[in-house]
């Protein structure tokens, strides 16, 4: 039986077809060392992130900031973004409403968000946040899930927060019993028009599109921002350039940038070492792209020469 003669390939040609197990092993080697021995690379600030920071700082105290937690996990890219903005908004004297269209984000993550921000502020001795969070329902409320997703967001714009959408908060307190208000206007009379800034932490659909359609396009709330996961960041730039979004927090790097802006390092729950690991992974992917293309070029050249 004839045995297929193994084609002799040069090193450059082998670059075009690296075994995936080697690629995986190298990913592991790129990620683990910086987590153990951080490089502490400085974080550059993107203009789209600082736009949100500046906007909150320029709002008058007592303004209403809504954080719409539209993601499905405590882990990942949106949760750190929400944590750092929540801490900043409370420190800046804003009144924060937590809610969301995704059940996990709006209920479980919102609880973690409150508990971990409280613990962070106490550990760092940040008095503004500790006092803002001392009594629930004064400076922040957790309304829980917006039932029916997009449709619920439409109802918030058309009929307001109370009573169809939220008669109770996430903990079962009646909204009329909460002292939360905007310049004396109780939360039971809130409409989309009363929201000064809405930041949607969008992991997918439903997400910012619902607010864009029913809040922004109808003129009820013109100040929208988004905390975006890495894969969908590019899709939000057209909205920002059209003036629909005031800013974007891109991925975990955006959360770290926001930490840098506020000076509250660790408010997002992320450390610089995680960013170092991400940096090396990105560089590794670029190196892989270069190697792969060198391999492809070498293979096509040898084919052209007929060797």
């Amino acid at each position: 039986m004839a045995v297929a003669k193994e084609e002799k390939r040069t090193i450059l040609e082998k670059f075009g077809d690296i075994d995936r197990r080697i690629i995986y092993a190298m990913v592991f080697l790129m990620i683990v060392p910086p987590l153990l021995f951080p490089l502490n690379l400085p974080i550059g600030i993107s203009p789209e992130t600082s736009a949100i920071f500046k906007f909150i700082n320029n709002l008058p105290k007592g303004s209403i900031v809504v954080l719409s937690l539209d993601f499905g996990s405590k882990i990942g890219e949106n949760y750190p973004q929400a944590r750092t903005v929540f801490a900043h908004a409370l420190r800046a004297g804003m009144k924060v409403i937590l809610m969301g269209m995704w059940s996990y984000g709006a209920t479980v993550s919102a609880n973690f968000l409150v508990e971990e921000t409280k613990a962070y502020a106490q550990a760092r001795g940040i008095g503004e946040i500790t006092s803002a969070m001392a009594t629930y329902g004064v400076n922040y409320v957790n309304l829980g899930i917006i039932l029916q997703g997009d449709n619920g967001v439409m109802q918030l714009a058309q009929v307001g927060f109370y009573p169809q959408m939220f008669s109770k908060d996430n903990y079962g307190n009646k909204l009329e019993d909460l002292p939360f208000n905007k310049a004396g206007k109780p939360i039971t009379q809130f409409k989309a028009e009363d929201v000064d800034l809405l930041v949607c932490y969008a992991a997918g659909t439903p997400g910012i599109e619902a607010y864009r359609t029913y809040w922004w396009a109808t003129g009820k709330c013109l100040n929208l921002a988004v905390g975006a996961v890495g894969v969908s960041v590019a899709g939000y730039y057209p909205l920002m350039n059209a003036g629909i979004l005031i800013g974007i927090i891109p991925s975990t790097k955006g959360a770290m940038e926001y930490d840098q802006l506020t000076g509250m390092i660790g408010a997002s729950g992320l450390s610089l070492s995680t960013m170092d690991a991400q940096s090396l992974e990105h560089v590794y992917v670029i190196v892989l792209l270069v190697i792969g293309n060198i391999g492809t070029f070498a293979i096509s050249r040898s084919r052209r020469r007929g060797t």
Partner: protein
Amino acid sequence: MAGLARDLKKLVPMGIALIVGIFGAFAYFYYTKPTDDLLKNAVVFQSIVGYMAMAISFINISLIHGKNLQRRRKGWIFSILLIFMMFFSLVIGLGVKKGWPSVGLFDWGLDDFGTILIDAIQNPAGTAMFSLLAFYIASAAYRTFRIRGIDSAILLVSGALVLLGQAPIGSYIFGPQLLDLKTWILSVPNMAGSRGITLGIAVGSVAMGIRVLFGYERRPVLGGVE
């Protein structure tokens, strides 16, 4: 008689869709108090219909996976797991109270159980899935991003620049100008392409909406039957 019933079966849903659709569009663009009130009620009604659909889907999943189990179809073991977890989560959800979201109907004190499910299963599983992405994306990028012409070369270079700009090491090596370049790529060329796609989708949606309203597109109202 049978013919009339068959025609009504087609015409009544299409008629309802036409009337409600035109009314919804009218009430959105032209404000009058009575139409606005009616629209608000219609929106609440839509929520109620949505909940009913959720209940139907619960029954549907139970039936489909119940049959899988009964006939020992391929993967029936996963059907058992799915049915068990679906009902188990329902029981846990109905009994949640205390510090966690008190949306439960009964005070069964199952919130600790729910917390364990989240802390011990959902969060670690979510983290594991996210972590795997780092491995798969590296491998997928290596295999697919090959330069085959000028278009793919431009795509590769701009992708690499955005990738570098999205990590701290990019601005560390190339300075803050890389961040500006990344923002420019995303704001200008990306926006040009994205706007074209978005406008195309919007025009297509309007055309599709008109077809549905006027009965040219029958599948949405007739459940796939022409």
